[in-house]
């Protein structure tokens, strides 16, 4: 099959073809130092401050929505992975959009270094708002949610919130109309059907259009790494100067962009489903999951980061695995030989070690859609409430035996941040299984709970803190979700 040997994207409406020698750059570097578009700023180079925010359209990600442009962090996005995208940066918005006007009149900028990022993130929100007919004015909480990924150290955010509130939506022109023509969409759509192979001495990048080719490539090239959305790899590249030399990208595999109900009460989430898309789908099906997804990471991250990536990374403080463990999650793993299924508990072997074998990659996750009568919750505790790495995260689900909700049929308890891997607290679960909740039961469960976890002290929290918090969250769950008397 024919392969392309250059990246194609549109930037501010202009066509860019980029070859291997520049494809390994981070987009922000490419913008600032190769195109001299210095409006986009870099502060943290790890996706935590939003100064580098740009907007991105990608055909497979936004196919059903009218909202085409989503904010992403350009500091941790390789040029290569933006193949097939259309991008808009601050540099194109020179004639004072209503967003910019509101930022000026409400004094939303002081030093100005974070401002381009805020403007772009607000534009992301505006694009979403005006994609519906007769949009209501921006509410404060809406603005806060859209700007969680943007740090400002000058204003105390108050003037920025004022600006958001005062954006005149009726004057807002869709950026898609301005920067993305139907012809461009057609070109991008047809281009991404063709696999991509970039090769240079420093950087080789392969993006097949089907899963089989991907797993064959992995089996043959053992030193290659899978680049999902680079929200972690990008950070490693920037901070530890990890050279991305041989990269496999799944972004052209259309099959992986599926999220669907399968069988009786199960979800299947493809490997390219972002946390934003997942959240939107979960809103109706598992609202607790949606609420939890609101709490971590930023819109910029969630617009590119995938659920599968969050699992595959095998970090003990990853946010979704505890919740997934309470949902009987199974990984669908593809290899050149075929597909195998692995329960998530068996997937994590050790700190950042998984049972993926050579040539294998995760195609999808399958998990329960709990019944309305189940109780479930996920908690995350971190130094700062939003956009922070967890010190502890905890998830629980109870399937009740009775309507009074004090007799347990089945229980799932899972906790992150207290061991080398995300833990399923199976011994503690055993204490509860088929039991009626009593104070004595809680006592023995607590004793077991503390034995099952092995927290360490680190920069996020001490081991004492983690012990106390796990215990508190465990009790909080029952206090909030059951009718039992908790200690």
């Amino acid at each position, binding site marked *: 099959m024919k392969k392309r040997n250059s990246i194609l994207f549109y930037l501010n409406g202009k066509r860019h073809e980029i070859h291997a020698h520049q494809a390994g750059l981070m987009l922000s570097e490419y913008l600032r130092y190769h195109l001299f578009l210095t409006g986009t700023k870099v502060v943290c180079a790890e996706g935590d401050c939003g100064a580098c925010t740009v907007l991105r359209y990608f055909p497979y990600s936004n196919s059903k929505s009218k909202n085409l442009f989503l904010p992403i962090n350009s500091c941790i996005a390789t040029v290569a992975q933006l193949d097939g995208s259309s991008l808009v940066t601050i*540099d194109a918005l020179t004639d004072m959009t209503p967003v910019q006007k509101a930022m000026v*009149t409400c004094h939303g900028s002081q030093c*100005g*270094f974070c401002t381009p990022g805020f403007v772009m993130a607000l534009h992301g929100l505006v694009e979403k708002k005006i994609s519906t007919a007769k949009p209501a004015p921006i509410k404060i909480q809406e603005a806060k949610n859209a700007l969680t990924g943007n740090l*400002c150290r*000058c*204003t105390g955010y108050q003037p920025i919130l004022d600006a958001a509130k005062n954006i005149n939506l009726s004057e807002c022109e869709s950026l898609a109309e301005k920067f993305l023509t139907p012809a461009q969409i057609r070109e991008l759509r047809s281009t991404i059907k063709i696999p991509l192979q970039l090769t240079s001495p420093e950087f080789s990048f392969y993006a097949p259009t089907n899963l089989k080719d991907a797993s064959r490539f992995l089996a043959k090239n053992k030193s290659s790494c899978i680049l999902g959305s680079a929200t972690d790899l990008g950070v490693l590249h920037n901070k530890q100067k990890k050279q991305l030399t041989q990269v496999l990208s799944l972004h052209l595999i259309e099959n992986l962009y599926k999220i669907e109900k399968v069988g009786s009460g199960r979800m299947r989430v493809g490997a390219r489903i972002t946390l934003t898309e997942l959240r939107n789908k979960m809103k109706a099906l598992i609202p607790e999951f949606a609420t939890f997804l609101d709490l971590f990471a930023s819109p910029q991250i969630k617009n590119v980061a995938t659920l599968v990536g969050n699992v595959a990374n095998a970090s003990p403080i990853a946010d979704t695995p505890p919740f997934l463990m309470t949902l009987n999650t199974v990984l669908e793993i593809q290899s050149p030989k075929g597909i195998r299924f692995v329960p998530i508990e068996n997937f994590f072997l050790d700190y950042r070690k998984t049972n993926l074998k050579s040539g294998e990659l995760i195609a999808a996750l399958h998990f329960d859609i709990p019944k309305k009568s189940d109780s479930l919750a996920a908690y995350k505790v971190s130094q700062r409430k939003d956009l922070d790495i967890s010190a502890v995260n905890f998830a629980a689900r109870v399937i009740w035996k009775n309507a009074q909700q004090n007799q347990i049929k089945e229980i799932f308890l899972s906790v992150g941040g207290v061991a080398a891997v995300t833990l399923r607290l199976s011994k503690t679960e055993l204490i509860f299984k088929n039991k009626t909740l009593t104070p004595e039961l809680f006592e023995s469960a607590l004793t077991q709970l503390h034995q099952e976890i092995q927290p360490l002290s680190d920069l996020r929290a001490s081991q004492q803190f983690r012990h106390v918090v796990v*215990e508190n*969250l465990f009790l909080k769950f029952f206090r909030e979700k059951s009718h039992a008397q908790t200690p």
Partner: protein
Amino acid sequence: MHKPHDSAHLHVTGQSEFVDDRIRMQNEVFIEVIYSPHAHAKIKSIDSSRARQLCGVEGIFFGQDFHENLWGTIFRDQPLMATSEVNFAGEVIALVAATSPAIAAQARKLIQVQYEILPAILTIQDAISQESFIAGSRKIERGDVTHALKSSPNQLQNNIIIRGADHFYLESNVAVAYPKEDGQIEIHSSSQHPSEVQHVVSHGLGLPSKNITCIVKRMGGGFGGKESQAAPIAAYAALVAHKLNRPARIVLTKDDDMIMTGKRNPFENTYQVGFDDNGRILALDAQLFSDGGAYADLSTSIMERAMLHSDNAYYIPHMRVVGQVCRTHFHPHTAFRGFGGPKGVAMIEKIIEEIAHALKMDPLDVRKINCYDNHERNTTHYDQKVENNCLPKLFSDLESECQYRRRRKSIDEHNQLAIRTNLSVLKGISLTPVKFGISFTTRFLNQANALVIIHRDGSLQVSTGATEMGQGVNVRIAELLSTELGLPRTQVRMMPTSTDKNANTSPTAASSGTDLNGAAALLAVRRIKSRLSALALKLFEIPESRWARHTAGLGTEAEISVPNSIETNDPNAHADWNSGIASFSDIQFQDGHVFHKDNPQKRISFHSLIVEAYHNRISLSEYSHYKFPGLSFNKLTGKGDAFLYFTQGVACSEVSIDRDTGETKVQRVDIIMDLGRPINEALDLGQVTGGFIQGMGWVTSEKLFYKDGLLLSHAPSTYKIPSIQDTPREFNVRLFNNNENRPNVRGTKAAGEPPLLLCISIWTAIHDAMKHLPNYRQAYPTMELPATNEEILKALYPEKFKRWNTP
């Protein structure tokens, strides 16, 4: 609607130029730093041979490459680069210059340094026990403290542990140096103090100051962090540019910046206080220790300000405050918004809370009874009278506006219910004041100069020593000047701060940027204005056909001459107090026109007047110098007027804390600030909300985590400044109407630092939330500052924390 920041339209379109936005030149080199990961070590060897072999590496430089490898703002005690011994983790040892950032980064990894690790002092307590100090101990004392303490009906003693904080300016330290002909260097730096950059480079390279020009266009935030510590970074760029005779750029990553540069000084203060049964403080004996880090930097001045603010808003008849800076093996701590002020204020506000707790009083009543008044209890412990004191009024206004008493009652009821019924959320409320002294406490720094140029089209270029870091000093000065001349603000362009125009300047710091530089610029404009007024008066007497623009070419008319200028150091001299605008010979400047007040119909456009002035050979440029009057503070006696005036304010914060997780949510904040007569109210409000939220981070979520002296929380992933979600659900800010700040230019008051100190109300509100718990009915809760969720949880469950403290 107030006028926006002069750069706002550029900021929102990404067009404002920051240092690293300067397009790279083709022969430019990029610098990476090599620093010590150890807090204290001997450098045994440095092997840079592998790095040198790398294609594109143009040079590797060490401390020995400097002509004088030493700098320091107050004491010249710090090497620009360590040569034989490192004294903090993050201390720079070498620079590598390469043709691209990627090559420089690769080369950095190839440089091998061998260390012999030495014992390090990493706590204030260790420094005290080893008598590792920077400079001597200082004392400010009034009355007979020992006797007054002894005779007080009630006494308590305790301590407060205050941690540091990172500035987290969005733009990390950066500099670009261009070598120019004849041994000159032009440096573009993100510095609050271009004069110091110039001096450090000049000294470091052994070049006269006339060869060094430092230019600061704007900073992406400074907050004090770029007052002193931008200078060595700029010196690195200058060294490389000088040695290689090529442009050199250094752009620190956020991680390197946070590891290398100093923070807000940690403090550990102990105190003993005597008070009567009404909660009135009779005597205070306080000992302040700060962690200065490895070198002096500004720590002694910061300590001085902490000592001068240990009274905050309260009259303390007998008071002794002793301060000592400790030398440790941390990055040299430095200025940060509030300087030492917050560390003195946090202590006295904690003392107030403890007194209230001991007497079962509402802390607000204890505050009010101790507050400075306008009669007898209005002299500070350093003998400065608190003039035009608005604190009592601010207290009573806010108390009623935020419905403090009603909310206090409902919060107390909620907490009692929560404790009885095991609800996880506790609430707390606290109302604290600030009285912040405006001036550098080092007298000679309180001077500024300004250059004002009026071009022949009537537009102005203004250069001052003030640097723009977002605070809006440029726009304030531009507004002062354009108002004075009756012109639209857009007719004034504020030029980049440059040492070839404004020399011997002070840092833009101590909140005084507008006060000093605005006054200097206004004096310059007034001098031109007085000449223009005299000219206008004469022009109105002769027919227009005889004006110089028609006649000067042929020289057919006698030239008009006017007195050269006015002599004054008072920016309010000649000015009408209410408008702040001066007039000379009753000539008015309004709406781009000039006229006599008795005959407004007969007018000349500002532009025409300028043309006339030029043709009559009247100078259209002026250079002025200004100094704050009346500063008499004597550092040796600890007595005298340390400040030109005080900025005051009050804040009431309501918080909730989650007993399961220790998480804090600031629910509501109400602030009233006295900022005199603001030049631009919107910008002032921005300073208030911004300063307050920055302070909120310091007292809640911002935790610097060190391992053996090396900072591990060196990026926003691990160092958590407030996010937009952390802002109070309800945030009311109002400015107090005070028209009487007569000492300062136009009656305005400095707004930069004072609002930050109001964040203490959040910290005390968190304590307040715990006061009903059985543990704390007697004892006052003990928490460090910041009250992180771990700190809060520890205070909530001390026994559990002990239990799980297993190796």
